[in-house]
């Protein structure tokens, strides 16, 4: 059988190919692993960020409580000072119920619209007592909204309503009304307006400058920080607007508009 001779350089070419293949394989494996590790690291960082946001949100929710408790206890103190036992008992009972709701909802990331309305009703009832009927309020809910099925970040409206009462109506001479509206917008967006016919945000800010003890700054700051956190958590798309009604109408007061969309839904 005749034997075919293979030139030496053919072998060398094969060796060169083997080396090139080995190097390509080596780098391919390392690059794939690198991408995998980078993705895993990013995922871990994202999870961590998410947890961080959640813990910061919880902390911010916790910060809202002292303002409210401070005002409520002041109101009870006011009744006691006036020796109105029945009223103070009634106030205390309502406050106790509200605080229970308050702390229950504070622990939750989200609450149903029905729970939020329940909380606002309870809160405004107490404030109505404190303002001795100087305060009126109405809550309008679109019929198309399923209150039990719509969820929103917990404790987000209470500080806005609290601002409307304590800084809008409180400084107003005469009766004041807070109107809260819930309506459904396009793309599963919930629109909420909190309107008061108080002195308006511009004047309230002016008063606040003169009174350093006013807690509006911290309360509004806490709210802003919380809204920012919610946005950065990528779970919510929230648009927040606040305007002084005097700028657009002939009446006074403040109009807060919130558009909330759950991005996870």
């Amino acid at each position: 059988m005749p034997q075919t001779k293979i030139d030496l350089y053919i072998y060398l070419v094969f060796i060169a190919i083997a080396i090139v293949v080995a190097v390509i394989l080596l780098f391919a494996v390392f690059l794939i692993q690198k991408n995998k590790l980078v993705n895993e690291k990013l995922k871990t960082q994202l999870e961590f960020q998410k947890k961080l946001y959640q813990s910061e949100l919880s902390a911010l929710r916790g910060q809202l409580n002292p303002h409210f408790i401070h005002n409520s206890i002041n109101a009870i103190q006011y009744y006691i000072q006036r020796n109105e036992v029945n009223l103070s008992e009634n106030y205390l009972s309502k406050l106790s119920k509200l605080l229970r709701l308050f702390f229950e909802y504070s622990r939750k990331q989200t609450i149903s619209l029905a729970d939020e309305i329940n909380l606002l009703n309870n809160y405004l009832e107490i404030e109505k007592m404190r303002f001795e009927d100087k305060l009126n309020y109405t809550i309008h809910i679109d019929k198309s909204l399923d209150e039990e099925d719509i969820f929103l970040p917990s404790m987000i409206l209470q500080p806005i309503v609290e601002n409307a009462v304590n800084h809008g109506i409180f400084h107003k001479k005469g009766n004041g009304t807070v109107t809260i509206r819930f309506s459904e917008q396009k793309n599963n967006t919930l629109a909420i307006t909190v309107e008061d016919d108080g002195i308006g945000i511009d004047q309230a800010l002016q008063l606040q400058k003169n009174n350093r003890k006013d807690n509006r700054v911290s309360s509004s700051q806490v709210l802003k920080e919380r809204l920012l956190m919610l946005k950065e958590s990528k779970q919510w798309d929230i648009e927040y607007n606040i305007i002084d009604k005097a700028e657009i109408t002939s009446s006074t007061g403040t109009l807060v508009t919130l558009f909330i969309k759950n991005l996870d839904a």
Partner: protein
Amino acid sequence: MTILTTILYFWQSLAFMVSLFKRKANSEGHQKYFFYFLSFVIIMEAFAQILIHTGQAYYYVYNIFNTLSFLFYFFWYYSYLKNKLVLWLALLFVGISLPDLFLNDFISSILLISFFSGAIILLTLVVWYFVSLLKAEEAIYFYKIQAFWISTGILIYHIGVLPILILIKLPEYNQMHLGFAMMVLNILLYGLIALGLVCPKRK
């Protein structure tokens, strides 16, 4: 000295110079041993060249060089892998090399059994190191790891040199071709060792 030997010596010297200049920077890592190893490479190569040019037997120089090089690499990988199996493999290499030393002509031929066993064990350690690196978080910055580049050089060199040593046995053996191939492999080996030594340490 042929042109191929000159190029080879140039690359070995380059790697040595890099290890010399980076000696302080690498003084605390596992690569600190490379300065001594590359000094040894330069001395052995110079000694071999003297023997070649004076017409004396020189293969024993390469046999000593190969054996000590393998032992150095095994020790270096042991410092990374921290596994006693590496020491057992080194012992196995010595166990295979010793009979080869007595049974074959140590002075005027390359101890092929010793070289093959050393190269296969070394390639195993290279793969082992790469696998352990892949499992570590450090793999994200593999291109900044000194040992990665040095191991790549060792891998390329030994993948190439093993079949070349078989080709030497062929009747159509062409010293020029093989010399060229060995030069390329050496350039890659010492070039990648030099690259590894200048590679910035990840902070």
